[in-house]
C-alpha cells in the first residue's frame, strides 16, 4: 500500500492543508507545533476512524471553527489501483472511490476495502505496529524498557504501554492480597479470609445462640406445662384429701378403741395372775413350818456332812489298794535279789577278757612304730635317688628335643634333594643337547677349516702360478700355521678315563656311605667327613669329563687349521671364486647346574653319650605293715535295777473320820446321811416355790401395786367406751363404708399426686430461676442470624471477586502464551533478515524465545550468542527497528503498509544518525516511509514535505 496524498480541512491546526506523498522515504519536516502530529493523526483518522461526532473526535476540531473537519486520503494498493477515501465529520459521512467500481458510502464496504488494502481495519493494531514513536527508541536506549517488553507491549494490544506480563503481575498481587489469610492464618487477612472467618464465627455464634434459645423456649414450654399440671393436681387433690382425712380419722378412732379394749383385757389378766402368786406364797410358808429344825440347817451344813462321808469312802478305798501293793512288793524284792547275783558273775568274766585284749593292743602299737620308721627311711632314699637322676633326665630331654628339630631339617633336605635331582636331570638333558650341537658345529668347523685350507692352498697355488711357478720354500711357512695339531694317541686317553671312572665310582661310594652312616647310625661327624671326602673325590675325577673332552680344548682346536689338499689347476680355477664360509656358531644357552641342597648338621648333643647316675633305686619290698588285732574290747555287764520300795497306810485317819460323821448326824436329829439329805431337799423345795411365786408377783406388779392395777383397768374400760361412742358418729359411719381397697387406692393416688406436685413445684422454681437468668435472648439470636446473612453475602461477593481475578489470570496467561508463541515462531527469521540488512551483514542471526527475548550471533565470537543489553546503543536501535519491521511483516503478511516514524532518531549522535538514515533509505526502497521530524538532518535524503510556514532548505 502507498499513500498518494491527503487533503485536510479544519483539523486541528491544519485548516486547509494538502500534500502529496512520494514512494519511498517522505520526510515531513517542521518545527514543534507546526502540525506534524496533527497530520499524523489526520492520516490515522482518515484511514480508520468513523466520521462520528463524539468526545474523542471533537478534540481535533479546529479552534474557532463552527464546522467539523473533513479528511480526504488518496492511496494505492499493491497493484497500483488508486482509492480516494473521504471522511466528512461535519456531516458524519464517508465515501470511498474505488477504481473501476465507483463510489461507496457503506461503512462495511469501506472498512473491508481498507482492511484489504492496509491489512487491518483496527486503528489500535495499525497504530501500535507501523507507527514508531520517538520515545519508543529512547526507552530502549535508556534501559527503561527492554526490547522484549516493548515487543510484548505491542502484541498485547494495549493503548497505554501496558504489557501482559505486567497485567498478570498485578493480578498475582491482587489475588495474593485477596487470598491472604485464607489458607494460612495472617495478622491482617485479605477480604476472602476475612469474610470467610467472619461467616464461620457467626455461624458458630448462631448455632450456639439457637441451641440456647431453643433450650430456653423448651424451658418456657415446660414451665407452662408444669403450671397447668399443678393446677390440675390442685383440683383433683382437694376432694380426695377431704375423704382421705375422714377415713384416716375413722382409722385413728378404731385404733383407739382397739387399743383401750386390749388394755382393759390385759389388765384383767394381770390382776388374775397376781392373785394366783399370792396364793402360792402362802402354801409354801405352811409347808416349811411342818419340817421343824431342819429348816434351820444351811446348805453348807448338809454339804459338810456329805463331804465327810465321801472322805471316809475314799480312805476305805485307799486301804484296799495298800494291801494289793504290799503283795506286789514282796514279789519284786525276790526278783531283785536274783538279778544281783547274776551281775556279779558277769563282772568277773569281763575283767578277765579285758586283760587279754589290752595285751594284744600293746603288741600292735609296737609293730606299728617300727613300720613307720622303715617307711620314713625309704622315702629319704627315694628322694636322694630322684635328685641324683634329675640332671641326667634333663639332658636326655634336651637331646630328644634337638633330635626332633634335626629330623625336621633332614626331611626338608630330602624334599629339596628330590627337587634338586629333577633339576639336575633337566640340566643334564639340556647340556646334552647343547653338547650335541657343539659337536656338530665342531665337525662343521673342521670341514670349513679343511675347505679353507684347500682354498688358500689353491689360491696360493694360483697366485704362485700367476707369479711364475711354484715356490715351495716360500709357501711352507704359510702352510705351517694351518696344520692341525695332532691329538693324543687313543691308548693314553683310554687309560686316563678308566682311572677317572674308578675314582668317580669310589667318590660316590664314599659319599653314599656317609649318607648311610648319617641315616642309620645318626653319627653326624663321621658321616659328614665321609660325604665330603666322597664328593671331593667325585668332583676331582669327574670335572674334566663334565667340562667336555679331556684331551683337547676348543681353543686349541679353533686354532688348528684344516689340512690342505692339492687341487688340480682346473679345479682351482673352478673354485677360486668360492671361498668357504665359516659355519655359524650355534647359540648356546648359559646353563647353570643346579645346586645341591646342604645336608643339615645333626645336633651336637645327640652325638654325646649321656651317662646315667650310679645310684641304686631303693626298694620298699622289705617294709611290711603290721596287722592290727581283730578282736574288739569286751563290753562290761549291766548292773541290776535298785530294790523295790515298801508301801505304807495310816489306819487312824479312817477311824477319826467315821467318828466325826457319826457325831454330826446325831447333832442334826438324823440317823443316817440319806435321811438328812431327804429332809433337807424337801425344805428346799418349799423355799423354791415360795421364792418363785414372789418373783412372779414382783414381775407382775413392778413398781405398782394391786390397787393401782385396778385403777388402770377401770380407766381403760372408760376410754374404750368413749371410742365406741365416736365410732357411732354419722360422718365416720360414711367413711367406714370405704373398702380397704378403695382406701388404699385413695392413699396411693394422693401420694402420687403429692409426689408429682412436689416435683412440679421444684421444677417450676428451677425453670423460673433459669428463665430469669436468660443468657441469650431471642433478639440476640435474630441479630446474629441477620449479621450472618450479611457475612454470607459478603463472603459470596468476595468469592465471586476472587473467581473473577483467577479466571482473568488464567485466560490472560493463556492468551499471552498463545500470542507470544505465534510471534516467536515467525519473528526470529524476519528480524534476522532485517537486522542483517540494517547492519550491512554484521549481525546475521537472531533467536527469539517464548518470552520474545532476542539474542544475536556475536560477530566477534562465532558460535556465541549475545544479548541486546550488551550491544552498543546503535546496535540496539537497529535491532529494535528490525524487530518492529518484522512485527509489521508478521501482522501484515500480505500488504506493505507505510511505516510512520515520529522522529525516532532525534537524540542520535551523528554517526548513529547516519546509520539510521542509511537504514531508512535502504528500507524505503521496499515500502513507503513517512518520517516526521523537526530536524534538518534528513535534508539530503527522501521526498520532503514541509509543514505550513516552513521554508525549504537550499541544497
Amino acid at each position, binding site marked *: 500500500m502507498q499513500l498518494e496524498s491527503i487533503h485536510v480541512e479544519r483539523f486541528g491546526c491544519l485548516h486547509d492543508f494538502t500534500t502529496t506523498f512520494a514512494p519511498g522515504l517522505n520526510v515531513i519536516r517542521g518545527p514543534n507545533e507546526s502540525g506534524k502530529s496533527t497530520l499524523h493523526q489526520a492520516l490515522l483518522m482518515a484511514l480508520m476512524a468513523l466520521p462520528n461526532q463524539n468526545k474523542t473526535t471533537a478534540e481535533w476540531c479546529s479552534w474557532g471553527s463552527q464546522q467539523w473537519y473533513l479528511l480526504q486520503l488518496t492511496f494505492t494498493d499493491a497493484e497500483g489501483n488508486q482509492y480516494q477515501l473521504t471522511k466528512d465529520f461535519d456531516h458524519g459521512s464517508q465515501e470511498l472511490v474505488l477504481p473501476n467500481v465507483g463510489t461507496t458510502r457503506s461503512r462495511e464496504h469501506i472498512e473491508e476495502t481498507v482492511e484489504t488494502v492496509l491489512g487491518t*481495519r483496527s486503528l489500535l493494531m495499525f497504530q501500535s505496529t507501523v507507527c514508531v514513536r520517538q520515545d519508543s527508541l529512547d526507552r530502549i536506549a535508556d534501559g527503561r524498557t527492554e526490547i522484549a517488553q516493548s515487543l510484548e507491549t505491542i502484541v498485547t494490544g494495549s493503548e497505554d504501554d*501496558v504489557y501482559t506480563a505486567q497485567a498478570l503481575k498485578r493480578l498475582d*498481587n491482587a489475588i495474593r492480597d485477596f487470598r491472604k489469610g485464607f489458607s494460612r492464618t495472617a495478622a491482617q487477612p485479605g477480604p476472602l479470609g476475612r469474610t470467610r472467618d467472619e461467616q464461620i464465627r457467626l455461624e458458630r455464634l448462631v448455632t450456639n445462640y439457637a441451641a440456647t434459645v431453643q433450650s430456653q423456649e423448651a424451658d418456657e414450654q415446660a414451665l407452662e406445662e408444669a403450671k397447668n399440671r399443678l393446677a390440675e393436681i390442685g383440683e383433683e387433690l382437694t376432694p380426695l384429701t377431704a375423704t382421705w382425712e375422714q377415713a384416716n380419722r375413722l382409722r385413728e378412732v378404731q385404733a383407739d378403741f382397739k387399743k383401750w379394749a386390749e388394755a382393759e383385757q390385759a389388765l384383767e389378766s394381770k390382776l388374775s395372775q397376781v392373785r394366783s402368786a399370792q396364793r402360792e406364797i402362802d402354801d409354801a410358808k405352811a409347808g416349811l413350818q411342818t419340817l421343824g429344825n431342819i429348816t434351820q440347817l444351811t446348805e453348807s451344813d448338809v454339804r459338810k456332812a456329805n463331804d465327810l462321808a465321801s472322805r471316809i469312802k475314799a480312805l476305805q478305798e485307799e486301804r484296799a489298794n495298800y494291801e494289793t501293793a504290799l503283795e506286789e512288793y514282796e514279789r519284786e524284792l525276790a526278783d531283785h535279789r536274783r538279778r544281783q547275783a547274776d551281775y556279779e558273775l558277769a563282772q568277773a568274766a569281763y575283767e578277765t577278757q579285758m586283760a587279754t585284749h589290752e595285751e594284744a593292743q600293746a603288741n600292735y602299737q609296737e609293730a606299728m612304730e617300727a613300720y613307720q620308721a622303715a617307711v620314713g627311711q625309704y622315702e629319704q632314699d627315694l628322694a636322694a635317688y630322684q635328685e641324683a637322676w634329675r640332671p641326667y633326665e634333663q639332658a636326655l630331654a634336651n637331646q630328644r628335643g634337638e633330635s626332633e628339630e634335626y629330623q625336621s631339617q633332614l626331611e626338608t633336605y630330602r624334599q629339596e634333594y628330590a627337587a634338586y635331582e629333577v633339576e639336575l636331570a633337566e640340566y643334564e638333558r639340556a647340556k646334552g643337547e647343547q653338547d650335541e650341537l657343539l659337536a656338530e658345529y665342531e665337525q662343521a668347523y673342521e670341514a670349513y677349516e679343511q675347505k679353507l685350507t684347500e682354498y688358500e692352498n689353491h689360491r696360493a697355488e694360483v697366485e704362485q702360478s700367476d707369479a711364475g711357478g711354484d715356490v715351495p720354500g716360500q709357501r711352507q711357512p704359510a702352510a705351517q700355521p694351518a696344520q692341525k695339531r695332532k691329538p693324543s694317541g687313543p691308548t693314553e686317553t683310554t687309560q686316563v678315563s678308566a682311572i677317572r671312572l674308578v675314582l668317580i665310582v669310589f667318590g660316590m661310594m664314599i659319599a653314599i656311605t656317609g649318607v648311610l652312616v648319617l641315616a642309620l647310625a645318626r653319627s653326624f661327624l663321621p658321616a659328614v667327613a665321609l660325604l665330603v671326602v666322597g664328593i671331593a673325590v667325585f668332583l676331582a675325577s669327574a670335572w674334566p669329563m663334565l667340562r667336555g673332552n679331556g684331551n683337547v680344548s676348543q681353543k686349541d682346536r679353533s686354532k688348528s687349521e684344516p689340512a690342505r689338499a692339492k687341487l688340480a689347476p682346473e679345479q682351482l680355477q673352478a673354485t677360486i671364486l668360492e671361498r668357504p664360509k665359516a659355519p655359524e656358531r650355534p647359540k648356546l644357552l648359559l646353563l647353570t647346574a643346579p645346586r645341591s641342597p646342604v645336608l643339615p648338621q645333626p645336633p651336637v648333643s645327640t652325638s654325646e653319650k649321656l651317662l646315667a647316675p650310679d645310684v641304686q633305686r631303693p626298694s620298699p619290698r622289705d617294709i611290711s605293715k603290721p596287722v592290727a588285732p581283730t578282736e574288739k574290747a569286751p563290753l562290761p555287764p549291766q548292773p541290776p535295777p535298785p530294790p523295790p520300795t515298801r508301801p505304807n497306810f495310816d489306819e487312824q485317819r479312817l477311824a477319826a473320820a467315821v467318828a466325826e460323821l457319826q457325831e454330826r448326824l446325831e447333832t442334826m436329829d438324823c440317823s443316817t446321811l440319806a435321811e438328812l439329805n431327804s429332809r433337807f431337799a424337801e425344805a428346799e423345795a418349799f423355799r423354791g416355790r415360795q421364792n418363785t411365786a414372789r418373783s412372779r408377783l414382783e414381775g407382775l406388779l413392778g413398781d405398782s401395786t394391786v390397787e393401782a392395777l385396778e385403777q388402770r383397768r377401770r380407766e381403760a374400760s372408760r376410754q374404750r367406751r368413749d371410742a365406741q361412742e365416736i365410732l357411732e358418729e354419722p360422718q365416720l359411719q360414711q367413711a367406714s363404708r370405704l373398702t380397704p381397697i378403695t382406701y388404699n387406692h385413695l392413699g396411693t393416688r394422693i401420694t402420687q399426686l403429692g409426689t408429682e406436685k412436689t416435683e412440679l413445684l421444684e421444677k417450676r422454681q428451677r425453670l423460673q430461676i433459669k428463665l430469669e437468668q436468660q443468657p441469650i435472648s*431471642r433478639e440476640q439470636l435474630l441479630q446474629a*442470624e*441477620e449479621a450472618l446473612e450479611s457475612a454470607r453475602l459478603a463472603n459470596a461477593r468476595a468469592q465471586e471477586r476472587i473467581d473473577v481475578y483467577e479466571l482473568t489470570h488464567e485466560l490472560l496467561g493463556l492468551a499471552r502464551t498463545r500470542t507470544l508463541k505465534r510471534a516467536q515462531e515467525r519473528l526470529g527469521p524476519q528480524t534476522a533478515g532485517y537486522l542483517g540488512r540494517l547492519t550491512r551483514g554484521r549481525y546475521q542471526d537472531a533467536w527469539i524465545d517464548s518470552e520474545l527475548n532476542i539474542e544475536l550471533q556475536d560477530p566477534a565470537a562465532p558460535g556465541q550468542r549475545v544479548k541486546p543489553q550488551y550491544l552498543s546503543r546503535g546496535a540496539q536501535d537497529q535491532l529494535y527497528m528490525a524487530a518492529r519491521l518484522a512485527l509489521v511483516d508478521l501482522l501484515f503478511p500480505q500488504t506493505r503498509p507505510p511505516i510512520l516514524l515520529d522522529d525516532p532518531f532525534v537524540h542520535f549522535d551523528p554517526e548513529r544518525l547516519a546509520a539510521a538514515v542509511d537504514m531508512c533509505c535502504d528500507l524505503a526502497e521496499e515500502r513507503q516511509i513517512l518520517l516526521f521530524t523537526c530536524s534538518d538532518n534528513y535534508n539530503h535524503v527522501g521526498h520532503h514535505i514541509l509543514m505550513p510556514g516552513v521554508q525549504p532548505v537550499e541544497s
Partner: protein
Amino acid sequence: MTRILHTADVHLDAPFHFLGEKGAAHRQQIRQTFGRIAALAAEEHYDLLLIAGDLFNDNHPSRDTQHFMLSRLAALPLPVCILPGNHDFLDRHSVYHRLALPPNVHLLAERPSYLPFPELDLTIAGNPIHKYFDDTPQLKSISRDDSSRWFVAVAHGNMQVPGPFAATSRPIEPQAIADTGADYVALGDWHTFADYSQAGVRAYYSGAPEPTSIAQTKTGTVSSVTLSENGISVTPLQVGAVSAGALELDVTGLSEAEVIAAIQAQAASNRILNVTLTGLKAADSLLDLETIYEATASDFYRLQLKDKATLGLEQIEPNEFPEAFVVGQYVRMLADRITEATDEREQRVAEQALQLGVALLKGHKVL
C-alpha cells in the same frame, strides 16, 4: 355507627436477614409502629381494634415483646379482637396460650369462632389457623349471624385470584367472601392494602404496617372501617415509618460515578431501596458494586444492589480487539466462556473477568 381499625401482618419479632445489622432497628421500628396503631385507635376513638393474623412472626416472641404488646393493648379503652395467623398459629404451643390476655383482648380460638360485642351490636367471626400449612378454606362455616346489627368476618389467607401473591395454601375463595353476607370482611396475609369486595360484601387487605421484605413496596397501611346505616366505608391510613422501593437502573454508557449519582438521587434515610443494574456494560469499564454500595448505602435505610447488566457481546467491536494481539485472544476466549456459561453466576464472573482483563491491558487502574 361503629368504627373499626383493621390491621394485620405486624410480624412482631420477625428476623430481617435482608437488613443485616439493621434488623434489630427494624424490629424496634415495628414495635413502635404497632404502638402507634394502638395509640391511633385510642386517640381517634375507634370502637374496636381488629388484628387479622400474624400479630407475631412466630410463637416464640421475646418476653419483652409479649410484655410490650400486652401493655399496649391492656391500656386501650376499646376491645381488641385477635385472629391467629399462619405465623402465630394456634396449636398447643401457641404463644396465645402463654399470654395472660387482658379482659379487653379477645382471641378467636375456635373454628369457627363467633365473638359477640353486645355494646357495639357487633359479632365478629373467623377461623383461627391451627398450623402453618393449612389448606382449609379460611371462611369455611362463616356466615352472617343475625344476633347483632353488624357482622364482620375475619380471615387470614390467600385470595384465590391471579396475581403476584397467588398461592393455594390458606385459600380464600371470592365466592366465600360473598357467601359470608358480612358487612365487612377483614383480610390478612397479604402485605399490601387491597380491595377484594365481592357481590356487595366489602373485603379488604389492610396491608402490613411495615415492610418485612425488600420486595414489599406498598406497605405501611391500616384500614379504617366505618359501619353505619349510611354505608360501609374503608379508608387506608398510612402508619408505616419505613418505605421500600425498587430502582432499575440502565447503566448503558454510564460511568461508575454516574451510577452512584443516579442511586443517590433516590436517597432517603427511611427508605429501603432495591437497585437492579440493567443494560449493557462496556468491555473495558468495570462497575464495582462494592464501590457503588459503599458510596451510597449510608444514605438509605437499607440499600440492595443487584448487577443484572450484561456485557452485550454483540456490542463488542472485533476491530477494537484484533485477534493477533493478546487482548484479542483474551476477549475471544472469554466471549466463548460467557456464551457457554451454564448459570447466571458463571456468566457474571466471565463478564467481569473480560472487563477486568481488558481494563488491565488498557492500563486502567482497576486493581
